């Protein structure tokens, strides 16, 4: 005996294909109910109709519609209207799935990180133009110390004379026309606004990243953690990476160049941004990067698979190890 079922009905037939009993569900005009039905079947569970029939025919073999070993029989297949409703439910389910993607922190971080990168790139070009522009009119002024502060000073100045006073330099004989100065000042305003916008955006990244990956954020800082997970296309993928990959994530170009031409291998990728590595002497950076990357994979796995989030205790231990590596290698190796 065979028990056939699909989303709308269930039926029992003997091996010759004679139908013995049928149960039909007629609530399919309610799309929400239909969607939850589809969920039930997608998760390999049985429908209430099939269960009722299974109680009546406990020795029948339960098979979902489309199984290869079912005998040929006149199963109660859905009619045209029911299939139309099924299509509607399918579209609704897809829509829900697409909407759920917005709740995925990985995708949100991806946009945030890329947006802040783009902002930063344009900030740097605009800022250097501003420095050159002001430098043309005030050749004596030097901005190496405080490039970022220049935008604020220019915005606050009424004209070139007040700016020269502010910067404590003499005013040359030729200066910009009034309209030219207004353009320069506008430019400085956008540089200043861009800077504050980046700060705002990075705060959002910090917030999202610290809740999404508390351990990795505690270890490497939220921005770096977010960058790594975006590079790996999501926290789940990041958690599956080996430590060696984590170490050079972001240095793909150098790495494949190494494989192709035999050039020296990269010792660190994005992870270099961490002061443990970037502020260490050149000859220990690789060693520290290797150790920190190994710890970072553990932290990422804690976050991805629901482990206890790391606190200052674990991070301090890693910091201690960094200090040990540094003190063990005080001098560059002999060539």
């Amino acid at each position, binding site marked *: 005996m065979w028990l056939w079922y699909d989303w709308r009905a269930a039926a029992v037939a003997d091996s010759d294909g004679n139908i013995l009993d049928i149960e039909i569900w007629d609530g399919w005009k309610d799309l929400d109910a239909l969607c939850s039905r589809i969920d039930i079947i997608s998760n390999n569970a049985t429908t209430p109709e099939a269960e009722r029939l299974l109680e009546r025919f406990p020795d029948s073999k339960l098979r979902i519609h*489309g199984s290869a070993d079912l005998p040929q029989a006149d199963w109660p297949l859905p009619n045209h209207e029911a299939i139309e409703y*099924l*299509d509607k439910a399918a*579209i609704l389910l*897809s*829509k829900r799935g*697409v909407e*759920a993607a917005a709740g995925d922190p990985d995708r949100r971080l991806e946009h945030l990180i890329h947006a802040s990168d783009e902002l930063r790139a344009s900030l740097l070009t605009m800022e250097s133009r501003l420095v050159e522009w002001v430098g043309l009119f005030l050749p004596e002024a030097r901005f190496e110390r405080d490039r970022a502060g220049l935008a604020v000073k220019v915005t606050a100045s009424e004209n070139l004379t007040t700016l020269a006073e502010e910067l404590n330099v003499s005013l040359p004989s030729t200066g910009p026309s009034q309209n030219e100065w207004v353009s320069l000042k506008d430019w400085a305003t956008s540089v200043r606004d861009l800077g504050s916008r980046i700060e705002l955006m990075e705060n959002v990244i910090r917030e999202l990243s610290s809740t999404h990956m508390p351990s990795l954020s505690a270890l490497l800082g939220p921005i770096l953690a977010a960058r790594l997970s975006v590079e790996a296309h999501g926290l789940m993928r990041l958690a599956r990476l080996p430590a060696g990959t984590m170490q050079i994530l972001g240095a793909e170009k150098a790495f494949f160049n190494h494989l192709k031409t035999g050039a020296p291998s990269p010792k660190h990728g994005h992870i270099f941004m961490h002061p443990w590595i970037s502020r260490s002497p050149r000859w220990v950076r690789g060693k520290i990067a290797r150790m920190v990357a190994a710890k970072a994979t553990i932290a990422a796995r804690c976050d991805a698979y629901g482990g206890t989030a790391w606190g200052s205790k674990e991070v301090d231990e890693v910091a201690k190890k960094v200090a040990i590596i540094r003190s063990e290698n005080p001098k560059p190796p002999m060539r």
Partner: protein
Amino acid sequence: MIDGKAIWSLNAVPKQSVYGETLRKFRGEEYRRWDPTRSKLGAAIARARNSQYELLPDEGDTCLYLGAGHGTSISHIYDQVCGQNNVKQGRIIAIDISTRCLRDLIHMSQSRPGLVPVLGDARKSDKWGLMVPNKVDWILQDVSQADQCEIFVNMVKKFLKPEGKALLSLKAASERFSKDSDKEVFTAVREQLESEGFTVTEQISLHGLEDKHCLYFVRN
């Protein structure tokens, strides 16, 4: 449909271009140009020698499209199978795993009754198999996965009607075993398909339109 070198399909949603393709009127009816560099199925039609007119499903068929993407090919299949407001009573089930692609497909399905976008993994047919209650007339698979040929064989066995049409768009670079050349990969896949008891009606190389791709036209 085929005019010189270009392929055209009768527009099911008049005055709307799906992906920026040219629209043109022939004898009072609007046609959309099928760009072979954007769609692998379009490329196959452009490149096929013997089965040019057989590749497409017939009007009113039920079609299963695995790896639907942004719906470039789907829109043309819809023109063929369903027509304006689905007068030809066709049904296209479009499966894709990417929510970004589904967004475009859902938008498309709003003006195209009979097109059913489904969010799911093409490999896990028990998750969405329910949407395909009856066997289908036509399958196209374009998933670029390492086991694309095996997925295809399983899908054809499970969902294709006897004497149906099945198309496999194979990306050589996705196959994990690294043969010396793409040609060897293509021959190996052909042998695999034939050993499963399918007849490979035509093996169409998409060289020049789509890199390292080959489309197999198979009947079971």
